[in-house]
């Protein structure tokens, strides 16, 4: 037991040091305050706009479940994934090879650490942010169910990762399990009743037991299925570099081709770019339907979707840089400015068309008028160009650092909100769209693109100098 305590303490310390080192040192300590402030403002704004408290609480549980899924993935897929995200890193969870500790036990402690760490650092301030909407006496229960929801997401990922160590049979079982849940939901079975959210809605012994069972079952599956000696086979690939060169000789830019290969060879290939933009489409659709049905506003789908889908610039740029290490170029005759130019070219080839394609699908699906469509298109392209420039200006080639650096993230949030909020408001209140207003929105899109270009142009020389300090 003392060994477990020592390992757990080391893991918690390690997690804190990892975050505080990666994401702004002591500024990371302000992260919970930032979460509470942003969460509180969001809850207040939604409440003021007429959104039901139950809807906001349900949305928070969904977001926390997704975060749990993602956290489990990063923690457990192994050293390569960690290296891709964090550089050369060795975590305590990987010490079974060098210490007399069982891998299964280490993973159990790792999960315990994650639940405790994020429950305090992220979920406690998130629960506190609901103070404007809920009676104070309900907040402890909300914290508990949010933490339990995070655990559910974490356990689901762990179970899938554990099953994946059994190769094809394990993956089939995982797919069948996920399919069964989806089928049950489609068949109208009360799937939500077996989640922590149901416990929050109707506290009681039955709902508590129902909420407790899924994570415990998933943990049992993980413990049973996990094969600590599993080694995935080495992956091979035909030479795609020359295929790219042949495909478009005019793009014979080595860093550009490398960037495209990084995206296509990493897990999910080009589909992950499409999928991450698709999630934004779903969020946009949710917002539009919320505005129409709950708040009673007549929405301009073109302007609304075009504005929100401008945010795809950040996720795409993240994919274009996540698998790259700037030190790769430090030993080659490649100027830092050329690396940024290649990223911009890759963004133009991969990011802009993805955002525009999703925009076209969503706007046409929602019945945008030609004028609305045109204005939304200009905003979609303009906001993407602006956000690309803003991201480069704030984070250079490592946009990942945004996520937990409180100051950077606040600056980014502000930089996004300044152009996005006004155009979103227009999209929600200005129907039907007049020709002069449509023209103004098109001009706004062009201006945003210009600002993005200026931000990019000023940022590159600065990052170029900083790379050699």
């Amino acid at each position: 037991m003392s060994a477990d305590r020592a390992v757990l303490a080391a893991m918690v310390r390690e997690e804190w040091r990892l975050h505080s080192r990666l994401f702004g040192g002591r500024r990371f300590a302000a992260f919970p305050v930032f979460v509470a402030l942003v969460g509180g403002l969001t809850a207040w704004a939604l409440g003021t706009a007429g959104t039901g408290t139950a809807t906001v609480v349900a949305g928070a549980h969904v977001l926390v479940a997704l975060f749990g899924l993602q956290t489990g993935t990063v923690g457990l897929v192994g050293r390569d994934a960690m290296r891709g995200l964090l550089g050369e890193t060795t975590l305590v969870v990987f010490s079974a090879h060098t210490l007399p500790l069982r891998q299964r036990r280490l993973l159990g402690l790792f999960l315990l650490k994650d639940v405790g760490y994020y429950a305090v650092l992220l979920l406690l301030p998130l629960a506190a942010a609901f103070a404007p909407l809920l009676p104070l006496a309900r907040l402890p229960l909300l914290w508990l169910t949010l933490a339990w929801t995070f655990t559910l997401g974490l356990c689901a990922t762990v179970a899938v990762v554990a099953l994946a160590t059994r190769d094809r049979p394990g993956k089939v079982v995982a797919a069948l399990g996920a399919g069964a849940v989806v089928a049950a939901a489609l068949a109208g079975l009360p799937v939500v009743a077996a989640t922590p959210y149901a416990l929050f809605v109707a506290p009681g012994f039955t709902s508590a037991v129902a909420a407790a069972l899924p994570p415990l079952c998933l943990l049992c599956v993980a413990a049973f299925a996990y094969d600590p000696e599993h080694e995935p086979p080495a992956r091979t690939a035909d030479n795609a570099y020359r295929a790219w060169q042949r495909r478009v000789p005019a793009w014979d830019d080595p860093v550009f081709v490398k960037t495209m290969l990084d995206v296509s060879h990493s897990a999910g290939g080009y589909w992950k770019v499409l999928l991450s933009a698709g999630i934004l489409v779903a969020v946009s659709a949710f917002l539009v339907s919320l505005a129409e049905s709950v708040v009673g506003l007549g929405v301009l789908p073109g302007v609304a979707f075009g504005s929100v889908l401008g945010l795809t610039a950040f996720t795409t740029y993240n994919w274009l840089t996540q698998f790259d290490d700037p030190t790769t170029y430090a030993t080659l005759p490649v100027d830092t400015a050329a690396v940024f130019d290649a990223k911009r070219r890759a963004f133009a080839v991969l990011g802009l068309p993805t955002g525009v394609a999703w925009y076209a699908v969503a706007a046409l699906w929602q019945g945008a008028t030609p004028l609305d469509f045109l204005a939304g298109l200009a905003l979609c392209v303009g906001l993407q160009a602006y956000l690309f420039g803003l991201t480069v200006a704030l984070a250079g080639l490592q946009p990942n650092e945004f996520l937990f650096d409180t100051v950077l993230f606040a600056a980014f949030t502000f930089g996004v909100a300044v152009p996005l909020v006004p155009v979103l408001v227009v999209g929600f209140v200005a129907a039907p769209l007049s020709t002069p207003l449509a023209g103004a929105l098109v001009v706004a899109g062009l201006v945003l693109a210009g600002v993005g270009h200026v931000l990019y142009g000023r940022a590159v020389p600065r990052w170029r100098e900083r790379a050699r300090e």
Partner: protein
Amino acid sequence: MNAITTEGLRKSYGDLTALAGLTLDVPAGELFGLLGPNGAGKSTTIRILTGQLRPDAGTASVLGVDPVDDPVGVRERVGVLPEQESPPSFMTPREYFDFVGSVRDLDAETVDARVETWADRLGYGAKLDTMNTDLSRGQQQKVMITAAFLHDPDLVFIDEPLANLDPIVQETVKRVLRDYRDDGNTVFLSTHDIDVAADLCDRVGIVREGELVTTRRPAGLGEERLLDVFLREVGADTDALDDASGGAGAGVETGADEGSDAGEGSDADGATGHTEGTDAGPGPDTGAGR
């Protein structure tokens, strides 16, 4: 003619001084080793000389190019093998070499021919289409060695060249470096492995706390061993080493070899004074001359 010249290079990272006025010359055609304990400033020296870092003070010239003013120009001319660097995870070695070849304006036929030669020499031909992230550390090191030499440069900078390699490949790499030097090229090697430096280098410079304190020709040390010189110059606690080895002696003869280190006094000003006159080597150590 010198391939590398530095004068009073200084570099600090916050409160930490990595280089405190490093001055050195490496003549063309020499296999030069920079030897020092961890944190002595070896990697920082390479990073400055290859234009990756800007020094706080001092000057440098590499093949006649100033790495501060023209970092890309320097890297066009030289090859660099950094310590602990891996090839890009989501490329195969073959794709990585095509990438490096494109950056260096090599045509595809040249890249293919050189890759085949190096893969045969280092014994990883079967792994050319395996994703780099799935290669062992040793195989990744072989890929990085090939990338450093792909454009047949006149000068290579190598940081700990034999790390992660098995003994057979270590010998192969040593032979490759000697052949490369024999063809008239220059090797600047950084290591903390004294045996590697003694076995491989024409001349060795010892750095301590960011300064070059002496240079030696291993072949001309006579009875004295490079280890002895190194321990003395870096100020190691040789008594402790003796104790740790049970009194059998790590070969540290602190008193006996003082006479041969005639240059000690002049080292105080940096390495400029530590020239052929102070080296105990048999031939004139022209490389160190300033």
